[in-house]
């Protein structure tokens, strides 16, 4: 029925004379079927498993529906430790990335040196590297049989922090470099002729204009750090447990599937919440 009503409107040409706006508004309708395969794939390979995870977290092995698994996990010290570790490492890494990324982007954008553009390009390429590669490099340098020597801190949260800051900093630099390219050099010159030296110009002219980009890059890095698995697995595996690590150990090592699913759900909720924040911020930044 609905189809019969729709067809004359879309194809009957009655709306055609109303102008281009109408025509362009109806054009995508014809290709709506094109959305079916991706949505189906998304449903099959992402939403369905996600649903299973949520379902599993509510159905203990003993049968029935209950929040017992939640109560059990929330009560356990290992979960609370992992949550705390995850959050502080993610926050500290984000802060480190923001500071380091801001300084590096500042130098690349405003200090003329040969190869500045190449360095900016390299930051782009860096984004495509797998995260464990950086960790592996750090292990080669500072690990138990490292080139520079054995530094036990790699297996501590500080090692994870170092690796995450190293790997995620370019994610902050990217939006910052874009923001810096928009800064009007005439403003910097005006500030300079008004008597402001470099630190004041950075703090009062450049930083305020880069704030939206900093917020966007920072929240992206925060989400990525919360979910980081590879880096933690390679560096801190023995001493550091984050939520993704906890999921892994519960599911694979302890075969506690409901427990693993509960932790996963918590992780997903935190990520989705932060992603919402990221979208909000990046939309305001115009990114």
């Amino acid at each position, binding site marked *: 029925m609905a189809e019969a009503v729709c067809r004359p409107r879309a194809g009957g040409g009655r709306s055609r004379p109303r102008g281009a706006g109408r025509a362009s508004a109806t054009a995508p309708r014809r290709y709506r079927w094109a959305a079916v395969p991706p949505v189906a794939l998304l449903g099959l390979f992402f939403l369905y498993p996600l649903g299973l995870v949520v379902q599993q977290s509510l159905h203990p092995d003993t049968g029935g529906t209950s929040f017992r698994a939640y109560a059990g996990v929330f009560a356990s010290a290992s979960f609370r430790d992992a949550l705390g570790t995850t959050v502080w490492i993610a926050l500290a890494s984000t802060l480190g990335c923001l500071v380091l990324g801001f300084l590096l982007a500042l130098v690349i954008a405003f200090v003329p040196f040969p190869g500045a553009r190449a360095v900016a390009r390299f930051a782009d390429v860096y984004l495509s590297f797998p995260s464990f590669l950086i960790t592996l490099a750090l292990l080669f340098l500072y690990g138990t049989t490292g080139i520079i020597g054995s530094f036990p801190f790699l297996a501590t949260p500080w090692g994870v922090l170092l690796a995450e800051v190293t790997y995620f900093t370019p994610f902050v630099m990217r939006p910052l470099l874009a923001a810096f390219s928009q800064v009007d050099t005439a403003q910097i010159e005006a500030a*300079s002729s008004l*008597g402001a030296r470099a630190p004041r110009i950075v703090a009062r002219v450049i930083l305020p204009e880069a704030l939206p980009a900093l917020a966007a890059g920072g929240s992206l890095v925060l989400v990525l750090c919360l979910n980081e698995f590879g880096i933690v697995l390679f560096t801190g595996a023995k001493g550091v447990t984050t939520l993704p690590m906890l999921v892994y150990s519960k599911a694979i090592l302890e075969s506690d599937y409901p427990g693993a699913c509960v932790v996963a759900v918590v992780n997903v909720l935190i990520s989705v919440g932060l992603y919402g924040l990221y979208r909000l911020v990046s939309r305001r930044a115009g990114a």
Partner: protein
Amino acid sequence: MSSGIRFDSVSVAYGGNVVLDSLDLTVEPGEVMALLGPSGSGKTTALRAVAGFVRPVSGRVFLGERDVTDLPPYRRGIGMVVQQYALFPHLRVADNVAFGLRARRTARAEVRQRVAEALEMTGMTAYARRHPRELSGGQQQRVAIARALAIRPGVLLLDEPLSALDARLRSGMLAELARLHRELPDVSILYVTHDQVEALTLADRIAVMDRARLRACGTPAELYRAPADEFTASFVGGANLLPVTVGSGGVDFAGVPVKVDTAGVAAGARATLCVRPHAVGLGEGPNRLVGTVTEVQWRGATHRLYVAVGGQVVMADLRELRDPPGFGDDVALHFAPEDAVLLPAGVSRG
């Protein structure tokens, strides 16, 4: 606060490309000097050398008695206003104006007082709490001027300050700038522009620049009445530049004898006769030229005639004619000998 600017053989080059070629120029304390020239003539480079944003490859820049060539911009104490305002978008008008004072760590009470003073002077007091994006172009430029004046500079650099404004606003701002200068008689102003009207209106003296070099420097009246070369004549005020051969007591233009002061030019030499279009009259008179009208432009208060005389086009600006000649009509033109100036022939482009 040091006032006055002196360029001592200042040259600026990027790579091998000379953009300012040994400029010698002095701006007296309290003087308004216009740097007038087409784009690429080096006028903005000269201004930026004073501000400290370009380093001369040779020569020195002085502010008053102080050699500032090696000083960074923030230690020169110069007020600068540019075409695109360059206000800080996240700061309110009052904070924009206070920026320079805060950078100098001026006491808070004095900052407030001097911001109020600068806003008052530019008529922007009512807008102190606004952000730049909430202001029109003219208002933004006033804020930029207030911001530059708040630090009480001895030297004010204006880089095409009115070019981003529309024509009506521009003449209003021109009057404003003239008033500001009367209120601040000690401030030297270097005013970069490509607009001869702005230069003639505002400047005590005009420096005409072309292709990285200073071509002429003098009061607007000197440059207008007795230009030194063809470029200056055509760039300041517009002019008929007619090729002539010098005779005794006059010149020969397209076979017509023309009376003009030929002092200092050898007979038989080629020269260029410079006559302002508004000095050319229609009808009989001294120095009569006969030709054919090739174009008539009505400009409201005036008519401009283009008249072909012996293969050359002579422009005449006439007070609005009740009965203007038409295309193809034969007309007689004339001009007084004292309204014509003889220039050296064709050493520069027209």
